[in-house]
């Protein structure tokens, strides 16, 4: 049995979740604020442990968990997002008597994502996947008196269970054909799938199951509704965190287990990537809800990352992995900024139906200067303006398509990237160029703090990309 210390980040996290839950029982509504700090500290501790474990490798529990550069990198993504969200949530959950539920659900969801990142067995993968899903179903409906939040939760749940069923169905076929659920084991016993139509079927079923999390068109339809309807911070977790879980699962399932069926899934992903980025970007153009716009943008970004499955080179994977990290920070940041705006709107007008409408962003540059500046950086990063994380990862990812000679794919991606600039710039326009009669607002500290952390990382990845790129490359080496 190898080094159990590798598991400490997960254990710390789950422990934090339990502690938060327990302590919460003994606190009244006013003192529950400390749970937020506690949870943040726990996530931070876990994050530090993961960073310390970078570079270590190992297999645990009969090879059902593997710890390698890929898993650690993605854990980093999940924990960073969780950290941002938990910090920002300190404000969001203020005065709520269910703070402990919120935090422990969030932490368990994050733990689920981390287990997915380490999964080396389809069973682990599926169960952990479900953990992340089930915890977030409740989170999405956290505002249980808000019909919109409930609707978001319901849609998320319905499509989520359908996808789970599809994935389980797919896993059952893979298991049937290979006789094992171990991911490397599947790769070794792939013969039957390779020679039969079942191969394609199971590939597509797995794509459908994972594509739900990734929000690939046409499995994306829940995403805009849920991202729009859920509390912004939960959207942040979904878009920035659980989407990446879909990617890491997909990396494992396709690039390790089903690598022999490369022809099938490359083709499928090529089609999906093109449709996804195009539809996401095009539909985002006409959105007036910023969260919904970010949701579609997130769909589009998923399309970009999916290109890595088409290109299938080390650079492409490194680019995709780096993109996952960057997107985590950018999207989380953007949603947190939106959350700040929503908070502002709701504190002015209690019963606002569309607090995230783009009209509420008018004059934000004056009303909430820090939020607006951070939002601008996130949006430009999402658009791929240089010296941001978004540019750096787009640079590597798009470059890899050219490297592989897939000029058509690069052209489509580039054109999409150009379109996307339109809707990002539109928000910037609202924030800075359109007047508003609102007053200047004291910006809520936790939101601002979380955004600033995200900004620092967005810029750091853009400026000082080497270490991030190095780890992304290391992670990519695990797959190829």
């Amino acid at each position: 049995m190898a080094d159990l210390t590798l598991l400490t980040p997960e254990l710390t996290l789950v422990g934090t979740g339990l502690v938060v839950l327990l302590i919460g029982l003994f606190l009244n509504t006013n003192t529950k604020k400390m749970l937020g700090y506690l949870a943040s500290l726990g996530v931070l501790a876990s994050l530090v442990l993961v960073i310390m474990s970078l570079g270590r490798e190992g297999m645990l529990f009969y090879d059902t968990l593997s710890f390698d550069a890929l898993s650690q990198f993605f854990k980093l993504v999940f924990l960073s997002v969780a950290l941002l969200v938990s910090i920002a949530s300190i404000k969001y959950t203020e005065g709520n008597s269910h703070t402990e539920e919120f935090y422990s659900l969030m932490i368990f969801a994050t733990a689920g994502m981390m287990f997915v990142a380490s999964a080396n067995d389809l069973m682990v993968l599926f169960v952990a996947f479900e953990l992340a899903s089930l915890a977030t179903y409740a989170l999405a409906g956290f505002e249980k008196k808000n019909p919109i939040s409930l609707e978001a939760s319901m849609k998320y749940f319905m499509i989520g269970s359908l996808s789970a069923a599809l994935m389980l169905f797919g896993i059952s076929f893979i298991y049937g054909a290979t006789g094992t659920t171990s991911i490397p084991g599947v790769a070794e016993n792939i013969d039957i799938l390779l020679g039969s139509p079942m191969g394609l079927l199971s590939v597509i079923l797995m794509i459908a199951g994972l594509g739900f999390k990734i929000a690939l068109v046409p499995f994306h339809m829940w995403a805009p509704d849920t991202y729009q309807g859920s509390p912004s911070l939960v959207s942040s977790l979904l878009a920035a965190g659980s989407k990446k879980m879909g990617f890491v699962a997909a990396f494992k399932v396709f690039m390790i287990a089903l690598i022999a069926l490369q022809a099938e899934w490359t083709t499928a992903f090529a089609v999906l990537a093109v449709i996804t980025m195009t539809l996401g970007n095009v539909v985002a153009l006409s959105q007036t809800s910023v969260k919904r716009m970010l949701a579609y943008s997130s769909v589009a970004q998923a399309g970009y990352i999916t290109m890595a499955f088409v290109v299938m080179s080390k650079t492409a994977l490194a680019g995709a992995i780096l993109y996952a990290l960057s997107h985590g920070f950018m999207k989380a940041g953007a949603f947190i900024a939106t959350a700040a705006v929503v908070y502002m709107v709701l504190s002015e007008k209690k019963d606002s139906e569309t607090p995230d409408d783009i009209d509420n962003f008018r004059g934000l540059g004056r009303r909430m200067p820090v939020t607006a500046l951070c939002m601008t950086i996130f949006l430009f990063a999402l658009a791929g303006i240089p010296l941001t994380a978004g540019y750096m990862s787009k640079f590597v990812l798009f470059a890899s398509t050219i490297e592989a000679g897939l000029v058509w794919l690069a052209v489509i991606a580039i054109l999409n990237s150009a379109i996307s600039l339109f809707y990002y710039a539109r928000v910037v326009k609202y924030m800075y160029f359109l007047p508003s009669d609102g007053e200047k607002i004291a910006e809520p500290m936790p939101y601002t703090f979380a955004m600033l952390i995200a900004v620092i990382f967005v810029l750091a990845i853009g400026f000082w990309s080497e270490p991030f790129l190095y780890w992304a490359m290391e992670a990519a080496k695990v797959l190829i």
Partner: protein
Amino acid sequence: MAIPILSLIVLIPFLFAVLTLFTKTKEQARVSALFSSVLVLALSMFMYFNFDSTTSQMQFQEFAQWVPSLGINYQLGIDGISMPLVLLNAIVIPFLILFTWNDDKKQPNRFYALILATQGAVIGVFVALDFFLFYVFWELTLVPLFFMVSIWGGPAKHKASIKFFIYTHVGSLVMLLGIFGLYFAAWGQTGTPNMGIEHLLSQFQFIASGLSRDLIFVALLFGFLVKIPAFPFHSWLPDAYVEAPTAGSVLFVLLKIGGYGLFRVMLPILPFTPSMNLMIAIMAALGAVSILYGAFLALAQKDLKRMVAYSSVSHMGYVTLGAAGLVSLSVSGAMFQQFSHGLIMSIMFMACGVINNATGTRIINELGGLARKMPKLAVIMMLAFMASLGLPGLTGFIAEFLVLTFTYINQPTYVVIAILAIIITAAYHLWAMQRTMFGVYNEKFGALKDISASQTFSMAVIAILILYFGLNPSPVLDMMITNSEKLVSLMAVAGV
């Protein structure tokens, strides 16, 4: 060189941009901005006087590893192609800040910060020797200008700024594809990644596939042509130039990165492009058509600023045409045209701004007789107009003469087209002059005041530079010639 002077020149504007952003009053903002720009001017003058214009080598080089795993380095250097353009920026920006000294702009701290940021980014493009860095600065130029147009622009600013932003972004992205192609092709050949511009350009000829070479060339060319802009990719320009505030228009004018790309990137790889002759013909044709087309369009405009914007299209045609001339002096002429155009158009846009502020209109027909009330402006504007229409003794003529004469040697047909445009060019300038400055004074404007001392000073200095470099172009032309001879000698190596 112990002092990293190029880094300073690039970073000082950015640093001061941040600093300026946090100033509270207009006074602080403008002083901070002026200080920064004067510092940059001093540094670039220092660099200029230590510059060896007899060599085409990169000078003041700086090197630091940045992202080694992708071969991306922080690599700066300057040579005869970039020096004049850096100088142009360094010279005009302080006077631009002086020009806006007494303007009542809202949010002056942001305004000056954006000016400085643009300066830093543009200079960065000129001195970057790494494609990654080059592209970073290239894109960074967009952002401050986008804000500039959107916040302080004219009535249609939102449409114009978004259009400009996205249009040129598309061009840049296509260029980026070309860079990727070049990068990976070179990576494949040498086995190590390297984003160095010179390295990649020298590897271009070894790319085995002719189609790849053509595609890379076309992608890069497209990016640059959009930015120059050459016909038919010019339609972002009039709106952006017109809607921008005066300072923004001037910054646009100083944005000579498209033409710079032609010399830095396109010409060295041109001889190794399989369909070289076609490419040359395309460049020459687009250049010549831009000249003629821009001139006709300028003639048709009713808005003074729009006319100047189209005249800019026309003038930038000389850059493309001269680059396609492939004679060292035609290429130098094209480079000189960039320099000259920057100076001339700065004054032109400043004059447009002054007129607009004073009278509240830019419609040419509504103006008239301004020379009586604004004699100083009239004199400076006359000089700028004359320089713009290519009057000898001013910079515009030197550039146009070199381009036309030496391009004729290789591309006679296109030069004939361009020559026809000269008359039209004269026509719209003179006609506009007649209708704005001359004729009966439109009394509804009341008692106009002439331009202020700071405006006069800044415009006059640039005007004097136009005259000086028109009479004595050697200080900047010599280094251009040195470099263009090297560029052209590449053609000879390739057996062209």
